């Protein structure tokens, strides 16, 4: 393995300030994150099930426990109607907030 001399790297570094480069990095980063999540699902198939069901479980628990709390319900009669969109969004976002992190350094 050999390190690149500074002169070789300089050209690419000048371009690195461009908006196009930043956009490409954003795209690559997002793709990489999605790829890593898919690989994790590949290693643990059961995860798909738990990621889907867990938010619904929280909807049931919180929804039932707090359904009569009008302060929290933001004008809705039933707290579950207020809670549901957020929980669905969370399910789509793989339920990260309520799951223990799998990352070793977390």
């Amino acid at each position: 393995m050999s390190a690149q001399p500074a002169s070789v790297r300089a050209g690419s570094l000048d371009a690195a300030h461009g908006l196009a480069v930043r956009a490409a990095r954003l795209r690559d980063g997002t793709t990489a994150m999605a790829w890593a999540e898919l690989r994790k699902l590949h290693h643990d198939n059961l995860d798909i099930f738990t990621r889907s069901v867990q938010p619904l479980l929280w909807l049931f628990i919180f929804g039932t426990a707090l359904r009569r709390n009008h302060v929290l319900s933001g004008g809705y009669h039933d707290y579950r109607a207020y809670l549901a969109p957020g929980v669905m969004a969370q399910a789509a976002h793989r339920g990260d907030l309520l799951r223990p992190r799998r990352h070793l350094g977390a």
Partner: protein
Amino acid sequence: MTALAREVEERAVAERVLGVEDLVVRFGEVEAVRGISFAVSPGESFGLLGPNGAGKTTTIRVLTTLLRPTAGSAEVAGHDVVRDGLAVRQSIGYVPQAISIDGALTARENLEFYGRVTGVPRRERGERIDQAVEAMALGTFLDRLGRTLSGGMLRRLEIATALLARPQVLFLDEPTLGLDPTARRMVWDRLELLREEAGTTILVTTHQMEEAERQCDRIAIMNLGSIAATGSPEELREQFEADSLEDVFTAATGGTLEEGGSFRDVRATRKRSRRLA
């Protein structure tokens, strides 16, 4: 400082791949780094030593562009860490104290992931991963999940991920923390080989005096945010008229070993050590 030490320091400043001048970092009332200056030559292995809370990690965080300095300047690979942060990040590899490997991915997938996020071109990615695998001797556990790897394997894998972008400077924040002697030796052997073959400059923080003595060309001992002494291990021993680097460390830090490091630091360090053991 001896004439030889001054000559080495002047050469480091002239040819530097990394230079820090009057660097100050404040967190509110607390001054974590108090106007330190040093330079590192290309291909050099430079050690930052000091008790907990001395400012070593804060300095590394500035040099890796994770933290903005309050005052002073720092350059890495010819780029200013504040004005040219992206260029600096493209020139360095960083292995932090905290474990940066994803336990739910295999070793190979972790390498692939880091290759993607650090912008390694797709056509070169496979070759660079192979080179990093060879450099850190990861061949036998490439298909194992990160959470099943031992501490030594994890550290080598982390260093391999940091090598994918072919860094000019590699920052290692306590790379052998929590590792057994065999794993430590393996990590250092691989880093030594990397220096010989690629000429990579290494800046390392460690609490292991014997490691610093054996592996570092030059050392800066930090204490309470300042640099208390700089030089090669031999020069420092001469300067402090000490038999070992441990004695130099105690003399340079004025025996303040018990003053640095918060409860939170100690708890985090112990937790990390347990995970790596």
